[in-house]
């Protein structure tokens, strides 16, 4: 009975612990610091410091796990550090760091620059760590809730804005509703196996053999709960509203980090406890994936609000990612890993350019397509970066986005889902239409010149995302090797 906090536990926990410590400390720190513009810079610096220390701890874990297939099991088996969790942890850290960089000027403009914002960013990130490393229903559920609760508050952070309020309440209601359904499914899983450990549940379900009605209920409720989190149709309806109403920096965080964490949950569950039922859930997920592609792409076609457009495009990306799960083989899982990372940089990039063109005078939270008009002349480098991000989202080589889709398509062919591959390829063509509405606005429309809210942090973030998007497409090999080990043990 190893019920106590051992050094191995400590080693495993350290990155998440760092985030929690810094996240809590920053709340206290606010009172110690003088008011004024210097304070906000300190907040950003302190947050980055927290992320950096988590990164150092993560790097040490990385070194400890250099042997393929090795893993650290801690806390009586409820917490696992393996290549899977490490991969996702790096994604979360990168997303949090970039979001911190782009938040500075945005919060200044909105006049909501507060320590709680950064604290919640860090705490949400720690929740994602627990989610990705959880090997136990309870740990995963709490990690999920930790992340989700932080996001509910972050989405409503501009509390003087009606849209932000509304987005928060909608996201909160639907999110906790779906969480409660997920919890119901978890309770049934526990009932069917007598354990909360994922591996033991898998064994119990495996020995049950065929799918009986109560197992079907558990599977359906869990599917609904998890598919909600990844914003797959028809559980996606929170996404456009929450994305549109949230502060844009939070939209960025939500659309990449929360999405990635939810996929971590999805993969852990469906390749773990529910893997004996794959014959049953595969067609369901395939159906959901196609519905997601159709709805996401079609709804985006005529959107005028860029954030809603990006929301629907995220929905459609969730569809591609789910197709990787449908294929479910090595190539498909690698495809998901690669896709998530590439999508992260591109989507963050699009939203950060949106933040950069935001001015104090524009008032409302609304980001119209027309706001981007003439960006090509106003700020050629931002426009070029935006073009690269959009090309990546549209999956055009040689940007990174192409590779993600390429792997997903290949995995579909490999597992004999040729029809799904054709559908997916056709929807890539559709998606180009709405991405290029943005491009057309930037390059082929006259816009009004106005000041840009650029800051050093913003420029750094744009540079990082842009270079990452290009490099992932041009010389993806080192990254692909890293990702290849991530999802396959």
């Amino acid at each position, binding site marked *: 009975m190893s019920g106590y906090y051992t050094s191995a536990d400590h080693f495993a926990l350290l990155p998440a612990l760092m985030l929690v410590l810094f996240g809590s400390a920053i709340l206290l720190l606010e009172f110690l610091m003088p008011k004024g513009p210097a304070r906000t810079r300190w907040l950003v610096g302190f947050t980055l410091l927290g992320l950096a220390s988590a990164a150092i701890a993560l790097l040490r874990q990385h070194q400890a796990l250099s042997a393929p297939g090795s893993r650290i099991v801690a806390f009586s088996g409820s917490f696992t550090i393996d290549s899977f969790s490490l991969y996702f942890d790096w994604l979360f850290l990168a997303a949090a760091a970039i979001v911190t960089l782009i938040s500075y000027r945005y919060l200044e403009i909105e006049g909501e620059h507060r320590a709680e914002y950064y604290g919640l960013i860090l705490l949400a990130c720690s929740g994602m760590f627990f989610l990705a490393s959880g090997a136990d229903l309870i740990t995963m559920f709490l990690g999920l809730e930790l992340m989700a609760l932080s996001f509910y508050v972050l989405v409503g952070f501009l509390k003087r804005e009606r849209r932000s309020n509304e987005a928060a309440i909608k996201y909160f209601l639907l999110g906790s509703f779906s969480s409660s359904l997920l919890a119901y499914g978890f309770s049934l899983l526990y009932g069917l196996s007598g354990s909360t450990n994922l591996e033991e549940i898998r064994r119990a379900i495996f020995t049950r053999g065929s799918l009986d009605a109560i197992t079907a209920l558990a599977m359906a409720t869990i599917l*609904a709960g998890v598919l909600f989190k990844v914003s797959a149709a028809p559980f996606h309806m929170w996404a456009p509203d929450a994305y549109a109403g949230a502060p844009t920096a939070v939209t960025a965080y939500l659309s990449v980090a929360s999405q990635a964490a939810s996929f971590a949950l999805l993969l852990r569950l469906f390749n773990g406890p529910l893997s004996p039922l794959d014959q049953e859930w595969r067609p369901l997920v395939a159906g959901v994936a196609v519905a997601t592609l159709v709805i996401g792409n079609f709804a985006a076609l005529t959107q005028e609000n860029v954030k809603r457009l990006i929301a629907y495009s995220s929905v459609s990306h969730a569809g591609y990612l789910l197709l990787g799960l449908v294929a479910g083989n090595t190539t498909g899982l690698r495809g998901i890993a690669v896709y998530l990372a590439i999508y992260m940089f591109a989507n963050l990039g699009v939203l950060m350019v949106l933040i950069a063109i935001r001015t104090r005078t524009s008032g409302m939270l609304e980001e119209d397509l027309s706001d981007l008009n003439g960006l090509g002349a106003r700020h050629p480098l931002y426009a070029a970066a935006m073009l690269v991000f959009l090309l990546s989202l549209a999956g055009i080589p040689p940007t990174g986005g192409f590779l993600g889709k390429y792997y997903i398509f290949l995995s579909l062919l490999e597992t004999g889902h040729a029809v799904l591959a054709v559908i997916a390829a056709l929807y890539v063509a559709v998606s180009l239409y709405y991405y290029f509405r943005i491009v057309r606005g930037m390059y082929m429309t006259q816009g009004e010149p106005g000041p840009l809210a650029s800051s050093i942090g913003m420029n750094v973030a744009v540079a990082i995302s842009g270079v990452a998007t290009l490099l992932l497409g041009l010389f993806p090999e080192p990254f*692909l090797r890293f990702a290849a080990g991530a999802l396959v043990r």
Partner: protein
Amino acid sequence: MVSFLDQLHWIPLFPLAGAALLMVFGPMLEKRARALIGFIACAAVLLSLLWSAGAVFELSQSVERSFEVVKFRWEPGLQFRLAGGGLAHLRADWGFLLDPLSAVMILVVTGISFLIHVYATGYMASAGGYYRFFGYLNLFVFFMLLLVMANNYLLLFAGWEGVGLASYLLIGFFFDRKAAGDAANKAFLTNRIADAALILGILAIFFTRGSVRFLDLAAGPWAATIALLLLIGAMGKSAQFPFHVWLPDAMEGPTPVSALIHAATMVTAGVYLIARSNLVFTASPDVANLVALVGAISAIFAASVALAQDDIKRVLAYSTISQLGFMFLALGVGAYWVAIFHLFTHAFFKALLFLGAGSIIHALHGEHDLHRMGGLFRKMPVTHATMLIGALALAGAPGMAGFFSKDEILAQLYGTGSPALYLIGILTSLMTAFYMWRLMQLAFYAKPAHAREVRESPLSMTGPLVVLAGGSVIVGWLGLPEAWAAGPLFQTFQNWLEPALGPHQEVKAGWLAGVAVLVAVAGIWLAWRFHDRRWHGPLANLLRNHWYVDQLYHTVIVRGVAHRGGYYLGHFDRLVVDGGVNGAAAFTRGLSRLSMFWDRWVIDGAVRAVGTMAKMGSFPVRFAQNGSVQSYALVLIAGLVALLWFSFGRPV
């Protein structure tokens, strides 16, 4: 000593560096040293041209006629299970291949690009955004070279999409015209649908053969599927029926762009792709027949539309579609080298014609309407002389480049024993000669329909015209049938391509050339006779008014008719006298109008309808998002119920 062949990758890198330089320093140079922008752009392409020439020369000296340079591994070589059950490593490289086929392509691309860059320094001299234009143009050359030099399908696809992007940016370059932006979008989107097929085709190649390298390609399984998917991809890029709708609209771009991208290089990528994949096409005769069919339809259809166009660039655009159709015809009957030969000659005279048209438009301050030109042949002697050569080459006048390549295609069509295809080829040739000469008549020899002071274009523009005109005369002599003139020089082309595209078969029927000449002469004569006639009569007017509801052309026609009404009245007697012959001409015109009607309303309409339907489909999805949080919750529960009942429904 530097070996050009070993450092092959520099060929595309020069234009890339040029594009990067222009994009970063362009805004600065635009204000201070405009000339330097043009110089950088031209120099980048010139370096690339010289390097290509060196590399091709070295290749011609070596015994091995295919040379690969692999710079980086693009894909990490993951294990992958193939259709046949075997394991393969997923692998694609940043690798470049120089073989006889890509050698021809890079020479065409860099050579024509260089001339057009030089021309553009004159043509765009007064346009805004000078650095952007040359930056995009260099970027295009980079992607085009990537396309033709890639050693695998995946890298080819990267270039393929890249040229699409560059073409998009260039078509929409004059974005203060709304039509330009629309045309850019249309071009990119139409292509993208075809590209979906192409990427599936590439995946299928990998999935069945375990490699996407060109040199590993073999006939093998799934040949027909792969060939079909590649064909659809090629049809998009090469603007073949019914994907051709984007090309005429793409003429909204600056004229040098039309010449380079939409006539000489990018649109031939489809032909290149099929020639490159000739093994799978040879292995699936049904798809090969389909290629020929697509080519035949495109050739005759586009030629008939070109008969009645009034916009000088649109005549040339439809002519391009038609000539690409010819190339597809040749590909379809398995005469790959002939298709590449025609691609080669066509690049010269079509670029020449476009640049000549650009010279006229430049001189007339943006006038595109043929009926408002005329009388230019004295005022623009160089443009006239070179255009004349280009027109004769395209019409197939004996001795010109177009004559040899087109005659060879016709001979091959005849030789493969399909009289229908041969007949279509002949008819298309007739129409080609007709619309080309009509263009020449209206632009140069008709009475001036304008009162502007017209000046010959500057040397930077006429220089390239002269060079291209020279090319249009001589390059045809490189691919003569042995029966006409045997000798290493006269068969350079087929001998050069033999290692890449297989041995060539000669069709021995001397009278075919006679027919071709006859047809060309007939077409030119008809055009000379009837170029300025308009068919009058109630039916014609009715049809004309009906077909020209299109707003864009409506104003042009109404103004045109009002302007020239008196002129036509004066010639009424002549019309009556020539009634009989006129009837035939009228019939041709009617046919042409019918084709155009079909094109503008049915094909284009169908494309638009698909777009509109997609947008219409958007609204129900969006309106379901009604803002009420409980509706969302209800949909969520509906989803849950569906999942639940579906999982019950499956056999336990």
